[in-house]
């Protein structure tokens, strides 16, 4: 072919890419803007354990018991008592219009029935159109109700207290004892941001050459495909690291995400993950006829990555076929690795099982990209 690999030519392509990147304000803005935007959106806005949900109450039988229950519900943090009413019609209306998420009814004769050990009813109506918003609050309810009344059931009523559970159930929420959503989301964002920007930027960078006609010039020069590919990819690895530094800094300083494992190990994994995404972008650029197509292909890759990788929804909650697709995506494996390293303090032995698919993906896509990249215009 064109003789041996030349570092000079590789350098030429790299220098050119860096200059072009510097002059392209939009790409530059995207490099920094996308991570910041996503951090704000996902980091601050998304909460899988919503608290202070608007609640309406209808207390038909005011008593010390109903007051205790009300206080306990508010104190749990899940319920925000916005309305009290005496009209059941109000309850239906408020749920229907979405004014409240929960409506709690304490019926007539509640305290009398309680004292007679007749198991009075307390009705909790939830707007379950969004199950994620209500499920945590609902599962907390039973415990709240029992503990609230235990304090009031004294003297002759002590017999009505709930007895201890037959077993002593202990739950350890390991790696994230408080169940903080950000611990899960922010490290994951690193993978999402890289998947999005890296694929798109390389796809565009190469397609742009074809669209502007400079590819013909490049092909007429004695440069090897591998030199072009590497020369275009390496500067973007640098860009990827800038994004990672931004996100890791934000994770630590803004969201207090623990960093249990080695950042060096993470850096090493990142090279593979970033290169895998860049290779995907490069492959797209060999298929796309123009920048619009390159953009569309990038989104075609990005969407399943975000949806099926376990970033948005729990991976194990997906059906088998979706999990199978997810396993093929580099983001899936990277998410497990990055959460493992940051939250669990995983080392190389623990992440090796996820590294292999990542490396295999990189190898396959690189071969594909080099085969697709033509040295001629045929």
């Amino acid at each position: 072919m064109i003789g041996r690999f030349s570092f000079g030519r590789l350098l030429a392509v790299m220098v050119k890419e860096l200059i072009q990147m510097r002059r392209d304000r939009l790409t530059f803005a995207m490099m920094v803007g996308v991570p910041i935007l996503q951090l704000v959106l996902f980091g601050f806005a998304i909460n899988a354990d919503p608290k202070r949900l608007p609640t309406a109450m209808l207390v038909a039988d005011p008593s010390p018991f109903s007051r205790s229950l009300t206080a306990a519900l508010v104190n749990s943090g899940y319920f925000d008592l916005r309305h009290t009413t005496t009209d059941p019609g109000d309850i239906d209306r408020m749920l229907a219009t979405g004014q409240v998420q929960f409506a709690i009814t304490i019926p007539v004769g509640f305290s009398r029935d309680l004292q007679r050990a007749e198991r009075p009813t307390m009705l909790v109506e939830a707007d379950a159109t969004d199950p994620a918003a209500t499920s945590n609050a609902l599962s907390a309810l039973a415990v709240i109700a029992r503990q609230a009344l235990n304090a009031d059931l004294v003297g002759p009523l002590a017999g009505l207290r709930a007895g201890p559970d037959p077993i002593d159930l202990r739950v350890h929420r390991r790696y994230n004892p408080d169940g903080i959503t950000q611990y899960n989301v922010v490290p994951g964002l690193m993978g999402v941001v890289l998947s999005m920007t890296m694929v798109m930027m390389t796809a565009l960078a190469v397609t742009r050459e074809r669209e502007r006609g400079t590819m013909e010039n490049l092909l007429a020069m004695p440069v090897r495909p591998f030199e072009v590919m590497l020369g275009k990819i390496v500067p973007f690895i640098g860009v990827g690291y800038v994004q990672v530094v931004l996100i890791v800094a934000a994770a630590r300083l803004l969201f207090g995400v623990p960093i249990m494992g080695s950042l060096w190990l993470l850096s090493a994994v990142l090279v593979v993950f970033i290169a895998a995404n860049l290779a995907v972008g490069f492959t797209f650029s060999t298929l796309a006829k123009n920048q619009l197509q390159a953009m569309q292909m990038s989104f075609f890759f990005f969407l399943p990555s975000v949806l099926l990788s376990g970033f948005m929804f729990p991976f194990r909650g997906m059906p088998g076929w979706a999990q199978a697709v997810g396993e093929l995506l580099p983001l899936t494996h990277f998410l497990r690795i990055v959460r493992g390293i940051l939250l669990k303090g995983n080392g190389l032995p623990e992440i090796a099982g996820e590294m292999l698919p990542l490396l295999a993906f990189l190898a396959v896509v690189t071969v594909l990209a080099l085969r697709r990249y033509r040295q001629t215009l045929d």
Partner: protein
Amino acid sequence: MTVPSGSGSPAAAPVAAIDVRGLVKRFGDKLVVNNVSIRVETGAIYGFLGPNGSGKTTTIRLLCGLLTPDAGEGTCLGLDIRRDSAAIKRQVGYMTQKFSFWEDLSIAENLDFVARMYGLPQRRRRVDEALERLGLANRRRQLAGELSGGWKQRLALAACILHDPKLLLLDEPTAGVDPKARREFWDEIHRLAADGLTVLVSTHYMDEAERCHEIAYIAYGTLMTHGPVDRVIAQSGLHTRVVSGHDLARVAEAVAAQTGVEMVAVFGSRLHVSGLDGAALDAALAPWMGDGNRQATEAAPTLEDVFIHLMNRSTDNFQ
């Protein structure tokens, strides 16, 4: 015009810079280049003419290894166009039809990139020299995209000859360039050829064709004719009558329908009437000559007459 015998001694048989035979290229069902053979002597300026979409660009791309021919063989600078395309690329400067340098790089950065690509020693010095020669030394930091058409073309040429190629392939280099810049460009081409560089240039302009040592005319992928300009005209077998006088528009309309008249074109106050049979032309014009208002003289056809004649003929063949 004659072809100079390269820079070698006259005794030695000159090695052709380009010598290809029977080139064929198809895109899908479409035959774009059909059995084209070209021979260009070293040091010659070879003009490549033909209508739009006739296969000029494709042929040039076949020569420099950007496309692989479906059939045909030959050499470029003594190197096989199929096997040695990489080696050919090192010694060929190819200037694309559309400006294909990086508009978001500065003038100096573009040249520097090219110098690195070809691994040129003393890169900085060569880039500086090229800038000096271009007269762009003080605008080296300007982005290439901000240059006017004429300057873009000069930059492209400077970048194409930066690595001292032996063969220059220019694809419609002067399209959209003003006449003064075009003339300067051609002066530069002749200087380069005098230094022993072989130049193959495609163009639409007849005045440019006449500045070539040799020309070839391609239409619908087929090479119609080739050779020095005067020989191409002589070989066309075309006869032309130049008519001057009154009522030329009416004459043109009437004569065009006559048998034996192939082309009628008005050039200001004169009318060019051409055809393959001189006697038929005279017969067609005779009815208009009697009243003394007009006169017809025999003249050599211009290159343009010949090309339009060839173009008409090739369309006939094609349909």
